[in-house]
């Protein structure tokens, strides 16, 4: 019997987590890459007196999230390419949208794991009061990550079949997710002001919510025809 939508999604998620738990390859490499990103940005955005440029933390945090997220997306689906496991997954008696949802949940967990380390690190290195309004920050990060991963999972999945997937993923993903990056950076920058500008952050959270709803709906809708050869 075919499992229901959420049961199937959770099965896909469990499969991904089981593989990841064995090697921990994606979490470790992505995290290391994110840290390396932050280090490189520190050369660009810390002035000679050792003080970072205003609001640098917000931009650095989000760019590190986006870059490391792209890396994780590429690796997750590269794994599915070996011995054509993605095809096997698509042949499984489960709805295509459920498979997409399972992959998306896996991506979200991995990106969240990176952010849990990354955010305090950025706050620490760049003297940024990121945790002045923890709930708003978590909302921004969560909604932004969902938006980025929703588009990213679909694009990475559909690019598996192409030869140039490594270069095409960022080329397609960044322009489409620009609203997420702008909303994330501006919202976080608003929280870094003293006192934190809560209404501004809330405004961006609203935009991110709308973005997430539209793009998850679109992705669930287009995943099936896109993955049919």
């Amino acid at each position, binding site marked *: 019997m075919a499992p229901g939508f959420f049961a199937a999604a959770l099965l896909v998620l469990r499969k991904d987590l089981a593989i990841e738990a064995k090697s921990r390859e994606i979490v470790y490499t992505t995290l290391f890459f994110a840290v390396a990103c932050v280090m490189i940005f520190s050369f660009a955005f810390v002035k000679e007196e050792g003080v970072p440029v205003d609001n640098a933390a917000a931009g650095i945090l989000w760019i590190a999230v986006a870059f490391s997220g792209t890396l994780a997306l590429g690796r997750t689906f590269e794994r599915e390419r070996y011995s054509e496991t993605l095809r096997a997954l698509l042949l499984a008696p489960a709805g295509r949208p459920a498979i997409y949802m399972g992959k998306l949940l896996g991506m979200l967990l991995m990106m969240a794991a990176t952010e849990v380390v990354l955010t305090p690190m950025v706050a620490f290195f760049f003297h940024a009061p990121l945790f002045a309004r923890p709930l708003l920050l978590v909302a921004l990060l969560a909604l932004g990550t969902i938006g980025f991963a929703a588009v990213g999972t679909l694009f990475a999945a559909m690019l598996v079949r*192409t030869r*140039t997937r490594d270069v095409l993923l960022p080329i397609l993903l960044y322009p*489409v*997710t620009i609203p997420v990056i702008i909303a994330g950076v501006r919202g976080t920058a608003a929280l870094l002001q003293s006192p934190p500008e809560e209404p501004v952050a809330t405004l961006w959270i609203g935009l991110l919510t709308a973005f997430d709803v539209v*793009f998850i709906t679109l992705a669930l809708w287009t995943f099936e025809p896109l993955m049919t050869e």
Partner: protein
Amino acid sequence: MKKIFVPLTILTAGMFVAAPIMIGMADLESTMLLVQKIFYFHFATWMAMTTAIVVCGLASAIYLFKGSKLADWYAVASAEVVVIFGVFGLFSGSLWGRKAWGVWWQWDARVTMATMIVMVFLGYLMVRKYGGPGSEKLAAAMGIFGAATSPFVYKSVDWWRTIHPQTTVMKTLGEKWPGAWLLVLFCSFAFVFLTVLLLAARVRLEQMRSELDHMYLAAED
């Protein structure tokens, strides 16, 4: 499309001949004077770009779900038109900005938005070119998501930066000289008609290409 192609070409050509004369005769705007005249074509290119974005999004969706070749041709044609008019709009905007703001490039809302949208549709064309076999489908996804992200880009950039004349130019113009609105509308229609013509010509090209491919295959058999 074939029947109205020639009349529409003549009409559009006529409009493009008339437009500069009408713009030349139009009243000067109170603060920006002569510089403001670039606005008529500048605004019209954005109208053309918006039309092409909508066509690209719809055509991509139809191609993805129905597999209609014609829709795919429309999608690729409109993506190219978006890039052409986007670049033209950025160019005319840059010229205007040089005179009105004193700089060639300003990270203001509309400029940023236009740049980002041009990037989205350049991405579309890149997938098509470098995606290998089956890239039409991948491009269709980019077309749908690109068209869907455009309003978000518009909104987010709007909240981020706003020094661009929102609708103030139009307002002051409209009060002093109501004909300005009509002229803007006239130019917009000229550019939208041009978009339609470009699309039709480009789709015809794709169609002939596809016919040629079939003939090659038939000759080989």
